[in-house]
């Protein structure tokens, strides 16, 4: 059973890796977007899904990663990979400096405090000459979509392995304990402040790397698009749709919602957003604990699973 699952996952990764060799340009571009969104959903999964802190600040990490690459390549003429590293450093510094005050807040208060961060960063960056102020930066183009695709896939694999490690390490157990009951975790010896900050930083590293790859691929960025709060909403929806606090749920959520959104925008174009909203609302009502939970329980309860969820959450 376990061996079968590993073989299935390896086969899925192999098929995904082969897409650039037989897929169309459109499919590859769709793939890069979907893979990067999956990385972002997995990054959010660490702080939101495992640690229980619903962060709206992850789009800041994404923006810092983008600017790390852009500044390194445009202003300093340094190679792309140095830029990625620079973006990661920026994200980690940000996570530590802001994590320590903000992670003291719980629940809605944490969400609201992080919600403001993207706005603030956007305003700051708009005034930094090094970052191109509000005009933005144009990166040297690299016309190599297969490379961006494989980079994104590799990053997703690393992010997912990290989360797999979380589920069986002391560190991950500490995070889960914080999510389940923070005071209970502290009196059992979990250094909650340190663990939350590390989780925030780890989450930020993956978001920053995704942002860096995206910036080089798109070859342009400005403060508006780099610190876009709707991207943060997207990663939360995807992680929650798939199953927060699970290893594969956020990936499934990101892929399926990317596909639904792609189909909708080519079929019904102008009102795609509306239909997408309907899908999300239906998902939250029918399976509030995500696809992963549904798949696990559907075998036992069948169609009753949906009716029970509706009943359990009526007002």
């Amino acid at each position, binding site marked *: 059973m376990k061996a079968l699952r590993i073989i299935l996952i390896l086969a899925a990764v192999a098929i995904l890796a082969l897409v650039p060799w037989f897929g169309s340009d459109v499919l590859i571009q769709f793939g890069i977007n979907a893979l990067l969104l999956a990385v972002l959903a997995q990054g959010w999964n660490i702080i939101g899904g495992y640690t229980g802190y619903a962060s709206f600040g992850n789009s800041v990490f994404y923006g810092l990663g983008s600017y790390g690459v852009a500044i390194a390549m445009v202003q300093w003429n340094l190679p792309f990979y140095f830029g990625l590293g620079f973006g990661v450093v920026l994200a980690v510094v940000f996570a530590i400096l802001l994590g320590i005050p903000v992670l003291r807040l719980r629940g809605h208060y944490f969400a609201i405090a992080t919600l403001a961060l993207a706005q603030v960063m956007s305003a700051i960056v708009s005034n930094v000459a090094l970052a191109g102020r509000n005009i933005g930066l144009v990166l040297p183009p690299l016309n190599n979509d297969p490379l961006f695709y494989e980079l994104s896939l590799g990053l997703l694999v690393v992010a997912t392995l990290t989360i797999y490690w979380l589920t069986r390490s*002391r560190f991950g*157990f500490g995070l*889960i304990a914080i999510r389940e*009951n923070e*005071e209970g*975790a502290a009196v059992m*010896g979990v250094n909650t*402040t340190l663990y939350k900050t590390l989780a925030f930083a780890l989450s930020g590293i993956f978001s920053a790397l995704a942002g860096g790859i995206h910036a080089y691929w798109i070859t342009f960025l400005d403060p508006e698009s780099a610190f876009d709060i709707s991207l943060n909403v997207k990663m939360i929806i995807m992680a929650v749709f798939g199953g927060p606090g699970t290893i594969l749920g956020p990936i499934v959520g990101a892929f399926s919602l990317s596909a639904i959104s792609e189909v909708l925008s080519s079929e019904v174009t102008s009102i795609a957003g509306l239909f997408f909203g309907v899908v999300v609302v239906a998902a939250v009502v029918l399976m509030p604990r995500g696809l992963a939970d549904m798949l696990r329980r559907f075998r036992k309860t069948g169609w009753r699973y949906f009716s029970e969820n509706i009943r359990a959450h009526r007002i």
Partner: protein
Amino acid sequence: MSAILDIQHVTRRFAGLIAVNDVSFTLQPGEILGVIGPNGAGKTTLISLISGTLAPTSGDILFEGKSLLGMPAYRRARLGIGRTFQIMRPFPGLSVLDNVAVGALFGHGEQAKLAQARERARAQLDFVGLGRNVDQRADELGGPGRKRLELAKALAMQPKVLLCDEVMAGLNHVEIDEVIEVIGKVRGEGISILVIEHVIKAIKSLSDRLLVLHHGEKIADGAPDDVLSNAAVVEAYLGKRRA
């Protein structure tokens, strides 16, 4: 013999209310100290002050001769102070086994790997009588099961001092006897225990010494029989006798 816990003139104020007022006492190694008192006497506050989830307004708390002032709760836990909560704080979404494994992973004693921690957790759950529930989710346990789970979680930390906040409240006679037996066995392992309890009969048979709190102040401290016949204690519990 030097005390493992030395509470020195500890006071805790909440705005205008004095929850604990200038309380001093010691806990000796291997001792079971019972703390009783009417509702609102400051018993749970006292445990929170020792475990570090609250800071005292004034006074000092020494553990093995060293002050705990300003030390965060997690470091006290690693030094060997384990506590249970009256309002239970399980990790609801985790299995009963993993709830206890957290204690083995993070508590006092050598830092275990996950497999070892689960093994230790399993032994601890057998010890408190939850051996059959290891695979259940913690929020599927009933009230008595959760009380035992609180105990197992604290014990998995391999503490030197165990602070029990009403682990018997809401249990029936048979279950109370079982918990008394468990606590007796814990003491047999050399762990010093502070027990808060409402069930006077249970705490009397269990404790070496009783301490009575009333309106945040210590009104009696001594052998259980002496303390329970003390006029001030009787008055606190039953009210003033009319002449």
